[in-house]
């Protein structure tokens, strides 16, 4: 690596000495708080829930929350990558259902087929999304909105307008969804592994940094030689594949390719990612935050159920209010950082 051996400037002083070290330190501390904001809120909510609802504390309940959070977690993982590039993927909910139906159908040919088929089909939809977005510069919102319709149509076409529910025929595949290790379901372990890989990819590979750079400034990234299009295409493929996988795991757990699923899942995933501190405008965000976001939504739901007897309408009102409070809190933490 050549680093032009350069003449020392005449005055070897600091050119960028504009801020005191103290200011930098506060900056970093507040930055930490902000980045961990979702985690902090999650902890607070968990502590409150554990104090108020005795049932909440049980190992079984925790395991149930985690298993239920597994598919949303996979979807939100892909969504995190997409949103960091400054994009959005509305098609994940449909792809999730499609993935489940395809997996259940393909399970007649065994475990491998049941896993591969949804990944391939949803990967292909992701590829289509990515190519359209990266190469024709159509807005991600609208491309993936079309994909939402398309994937749902495809799912309905495959299941005679949704009326046929394919049952899972492979025991191995079924176990993947229903088995457990240390009393915690396999899906949770699988998700844990994928999340770890995701974290490494995002923070420790060139691809991950390209993702951040594109979201930070697409033009700059392209001028700096980042393969913008290729990276974008991959990000949408990943999102599709993860949504398909989430669908497959869900099908394995349920034992069938249920067709009446997935409405609104994309919005939940987006909410989780944003609560986790990722900017919808792209360029910044973490997977750890997303995990906290998904769990937060899961815990809120669990708390509402613990109350019991709550009319479904009130449940929605509370979810909405909670969402607003969490996001506003997040934003104020973020502002604190900018002003300091």
């Amino acid at each position, binding site marked *: 690596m050549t680093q032009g051996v350069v003449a020392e400037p005449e005055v070897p002083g600091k050119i960028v000495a504009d801020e005191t070290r103290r200011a930098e330190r506060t900056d970093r501390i507040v930055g930490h708080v902000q980045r961990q904001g979702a985690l902090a809120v999650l902890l607070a909510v968990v502590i409150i829930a554990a104090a108020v609802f005795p049932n909440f504390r049980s190992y079984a309940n925790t395991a149930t929350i985690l298993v239920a959070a597994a598919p949303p977690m996979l979807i939100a993982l892909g969504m995190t990558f997409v949103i960091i590039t400054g994009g*959005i993927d509305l098609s994940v909910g449909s792809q999730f259902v499609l993935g489940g139906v395809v997996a259940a159908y393909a399970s007649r040919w065994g475990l491998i087929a049941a896993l591969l088929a949804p990944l391939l089909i949803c990967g292909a939809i992701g590829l289509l999304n990515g190519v*359209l977005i990266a190469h*024709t*510069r*159509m*807005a991600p*919102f*609208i*491309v993936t*909105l*079309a*994909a*939402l*319709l*398309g994937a*749902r*149509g*495809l*799912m*309905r*076409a495959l299941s005679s*307008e949704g009326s046929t529910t394919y049952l899972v025929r492979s025991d191995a595949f079924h176990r993947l969804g229903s088995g457990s290790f240390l009393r915690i379901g396999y899906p949770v372990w699988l998700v844990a592994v994928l999340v770890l890989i995701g974290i490494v990819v995002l923070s420790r590979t060139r691809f991950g940094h390209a993702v951040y750079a594109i979201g930070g400034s697409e033009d700059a990234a392209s001028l700096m030689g980042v393969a913008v299009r290729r990276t974008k295409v991959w990000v949408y493929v990943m999102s599709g594949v993860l949504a398909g996988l989430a669908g497959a795991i869900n099908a394995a757990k349920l034992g069938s390719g249920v067709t009446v699923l997935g409405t609104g899942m994309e*919005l939940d995933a*987006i*909410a989780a990612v*944003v609560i986790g501190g990722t*900017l*919808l*405008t792209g360029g910044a965000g973490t997977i750890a935050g997303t995990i906290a976001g998904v769990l937060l939504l899961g815990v809120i739901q669990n708390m509402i159920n613990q109350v019991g007897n709550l*009319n*479904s*309408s*009130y*449940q*929605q*009102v*509370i*979810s*909405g*209010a909670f*969402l*607003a409070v969490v*996001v*506003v809190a997040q*934003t*104020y933490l973020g*502002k604190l950082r900018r002003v300091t």
Partner: protein
Amino acid sequence: MSSEALTARAGIDMARVRAWLPAYGVYVAIVLLVLYNIFFTPYFLTWSNLRIQLIQVAPIVIVALGMALVIGTEGIDLSVGSVMALAASLIPLYLGYGVVGAILVSLLAGLGVGLVNGTLVARVGLQPIVATLALFVGGRGLALVISGGQLKDVRNDNLIFLGSGDLFGLPVLVWIAAVLVLIVAFVVRRTVFGRRLLAIGGNRASAELAGLPVQRVLIAVYVTCSVLASIAGLLAVARIQSSDASAVGLLIELSAITAVVVGGTPLTGGRVRVLGTVAGALLMQLVVATMIKHNLQPSTTEMVQAVIILIAVYVARERKTR
């Protein structure tokens, strides 16, 4: 004439078509679809059929108008469907005080939601999609709480007239939508508010430095959007002659956004095409109507819609020289 001149002229024509398509592609698509229907759909070319299509598209157009304004500021409003439900749920409660009273109350509800959305976006600084997501979830819940979760029949003749009456040979609903379209088009083109809205969508930082009341304009835009949605909500009640908080406006945010974008308004803000939005809504309505008339399965309808959205947006996309 030399062949060079010929190709030059063809080149210019292509360039012109290319510049023209994004703005008018959606109208071409409507014409094509209408032509198809005239030849292949029985009873398409009748007044009563056209009437039905206009009536059905009216609520989407009204919601899409507000959505177009919000999108013009580089925002998005997911809560419109919930606002419709909220407005709808209030109508039967206040119908006892007369139609006007009930309508006012439901418009007030829209105003309230708009204020919340606008404040979250403009003052708190939330990203629009998240700010409105909260009311998307909670708003419908609130509507259900208000209505006790029940569908209520509405038997008020004045209100029903709004939904199914005629005025000078056109449905009242269509008149209302048309008037709102004209007002919004006028506001965008001719008023200080409209120009400011576009500037904020184009570059918020510079609008702020130029001394524009950015927060006030943004709040006003979200309020307008919500109030338009509540108008759509109360018209929906008038039309189905019952108030059903669980069904009114379900998924309309996606239809509205689709109409706006298919109509050529970019999601990046700074531009609003009002007539394009109307055309976009009409196009999607015709697509669905065509599918229903030919008795096609929902799966087919959905896939065809997807393809049409993609084509429309592909044609209308911003082309940068490169």
